[in-house]
């Protein structure tokens, strides 16, 4: 569990003094001025390594609805709450706590988890964009992202799993913060959603998914970085036809390894294998040439086995239980179909087929149970070469009944 640098006990007391001062309407406790006028929240956000946090407003914390479920995750809930809100603790309660640092870590966890929720609200997004515009989060370390500004991002919404990372909207990837002082900050305090909700909310900051390299100025200089200055001349306003997508011109240059000036061929064992991860299509329409399972639309080839990986990954997201087994069958049958008949409009049919699978599984007769039972499967294999898509599924279901 990442924890902050151990809080200075004196500071702690100052905080308590601080309450008195606030209660006393600041009447002359000038001795501890500098630290005492600071609330716990601003003190916490000013600690080294806490630069990514914004200050959660007190009324957000005070609203119990916003804290739903957190009290089971944070030990010493009441004490932590008092610390965060700068409330003078009860006399007898204070004696119960063996060590103030325990409460301190609870308070940090409480604040962090509230912070995770707060930055998804309108006020929180606003607070974070202010920090973003002040470059509080730094820039992407990837050279060809050309210092795109990043935002903090967690890999999990549960605390204690991983430290904070930085998300770059240009390369859609996450990076380790450059300084080790962020190694102690829990990623859950920012959460998995924030970075992406942020760029959905401020679309003018999100790079569009396509990129047209600027026309080569005079000579195509060898280094990919020489395109830098060439982006400016294309001064006409940039428009993404998808109004819900990123509205910013992307930094789309990719790196080509070269040996003595010659590009390394992909035929070499050491040749480029990863450029796909950074490349963007030149126009948004090209994105539509790949269907929801990651297949090229209207293109039959025997690469379906390779594509299966990607396809299944997508499938998992939708409905792992239902579609998994059938998916494979469908894959096989599609290949058969490919051999059997000339390719026809593929994408839409595939969709139909898949929909058929899901539907048949859902509407399956109750006697059959939750899945197509095993006998049905063998039966289906016994009548193999019939063909493919949704309709055949129906046949499959009825055959055992008829027999």
């Amino acid at each position, binding site marked *: 569990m990442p924890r902050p640098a151990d809080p200075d006990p004196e500071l702690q007391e100052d905080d308590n003094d601080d309450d008195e001062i606030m209660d006393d309407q600041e009447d002359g406790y000038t001795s501890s001025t500098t630290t005492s006028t600071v609330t716990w929240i601003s003190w916490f956000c000013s600690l080294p390594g806490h630069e990514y946090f914004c200050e959660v407003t007190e009324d957000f914390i005070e609203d119990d609805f916003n804290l739903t479920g957190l009290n089971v995750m944070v030990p010493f809930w009441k004490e932590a709450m008092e610390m965060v809100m700068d409330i003078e603790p009860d006399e007898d309660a204070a004696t119960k706590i063996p060590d103030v640092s325990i409460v301190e870590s609870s308070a940090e966890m409480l604040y962090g988890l509230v912070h995770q929720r707060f930055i998804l609200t309108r006020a929180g997004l606003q607070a974070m964009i202010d920090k973003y515009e002040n470059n509080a989060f730094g820039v992407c*370390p*990837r*050279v*060809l992202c050309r210092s795109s500004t990043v935002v903090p991002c967690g890999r999990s919404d549960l605390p204690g799993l991983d430290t904070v*990372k930085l*998300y770059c909207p240009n390369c*859609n*990837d*996450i*990076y*380790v913060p*450059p300084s080790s002082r962020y190694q102690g900050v829990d990623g859950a305090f920012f959460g*998995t*959603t924030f*970075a*992406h*909700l942020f760029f*959905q909310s401020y679309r003018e900051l999100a790079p569009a*998914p396509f990129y047209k390299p600027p026309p080569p100025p005079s000579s195509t200089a*060898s*280094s990919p*970085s020489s395109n830098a200055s060439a982006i400016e001349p294309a001064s006409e306003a940039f428009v993404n036809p*998808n109004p819900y*997508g*990123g509205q910013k011109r992307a930094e789309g240059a990719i*790196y080509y*390894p*070269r*040996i*003595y*000036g010659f590009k*390394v061929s*992909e*035929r*070499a*064992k*050491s*040749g*480029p*294998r*990863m450029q*796909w*991860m*950074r*490349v*963007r*299509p030149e126009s948004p329409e*090209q*994105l539509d040439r*790949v269907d929801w399972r*990651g*297949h*090229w639309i209207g293109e039959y*080839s025997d*690469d379906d086995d*390779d*594509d299966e*990986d*990607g396809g299944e990954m997508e499938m998992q*997201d939708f409905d792992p239980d239902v579609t998994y087994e059938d998916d494979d069958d469908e894959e096989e049958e599609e290949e058969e179909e490919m051999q059997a008949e000339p390719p026809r409009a593929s994408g839409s049919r595939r969709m139909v087929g898949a929909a058929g699978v899901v539907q048949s599984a859902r509407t399956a007769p109750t006697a059959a149970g939750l899945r197509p039972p095993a006998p049905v499967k063998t039966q289906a294999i016994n009548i193999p070469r019939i063909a493919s898509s949704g309709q055949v599924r129906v046949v499959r279901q009825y055959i055992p009944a008829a027999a």
Partner: protein
Amino acid sequence: MFHRAVEEISTGSDSDYSRCWVSWFLSSKGNEYFCEVDEDFIVDRFNLTGLNSEVSNYNQALELITDNLDEDIQDDLRASLDVQARLLYGLIHARWIVTTRGLQKMLDKYKRVEFGRCPRVMCQQQPLLPVGLTDTPYQKSVKLYCGRCEDIYSPKSSRHAAIDGAYFGTTFPHLLFLIYPNLIPPKSGPPLDSASTMRNEPAEGGSRRRRNVRDEIQEAVAGDGADINTSSVALKVERYRPRIYGFQVNEVAKLQRWQEALRDRQVQRLEALEDR
């Protein structure tokens, strides 16, 4: 900088170390990426062909590097000579590290992770290699190449961000992996070599470890990589998938699907080549 060297000399620290310009240069802060160029490489004029037009005061700068410079040279000239000597050494370095021995020396440093680790989370701390974006000096600072994601990153420290990329050249990391395909990092899982070095680190002394590293390199270098097949490695790559409340972000997911379809196409192409 130069003053420090002068001081070291004049205070009479008697080891060879302080008297040798190259050693001083390598040990000064910010020059950690450089390796030592063998002296016989420097004195062979063939290796320096053309550099005399890049470096002013070429002869004296070379004398300074090889520690043959006259003692009675004026201080202001000395200071400017130092700049030239650095430039000259850097350009020689760029040529040196693409020779067999130079590659070995840089490999040694790579195995000791002296160039840092990839900041990309999914690369799991893959060690990096220095690379330039151009071979002409005074254009671009040095970048770091990750053999796993095959992309380039800026050094974390501003010290290193100030080093000229031409001192490493555009070729070096790619030539390294071309010649030693066994060293091409895996696309998933923890990096092999760094894991083994890290395991050795606490238990064993420096010299012992260095020998181990050498052995490993020898092992890696020994194979010609005939058994390596990298045509489908890209399928194993881990990617980050942006999600809002667990749901993928439409436009990004679309882009990633497109990219992966492109990847599959390449894999298919390469496998077809392999079968032939």
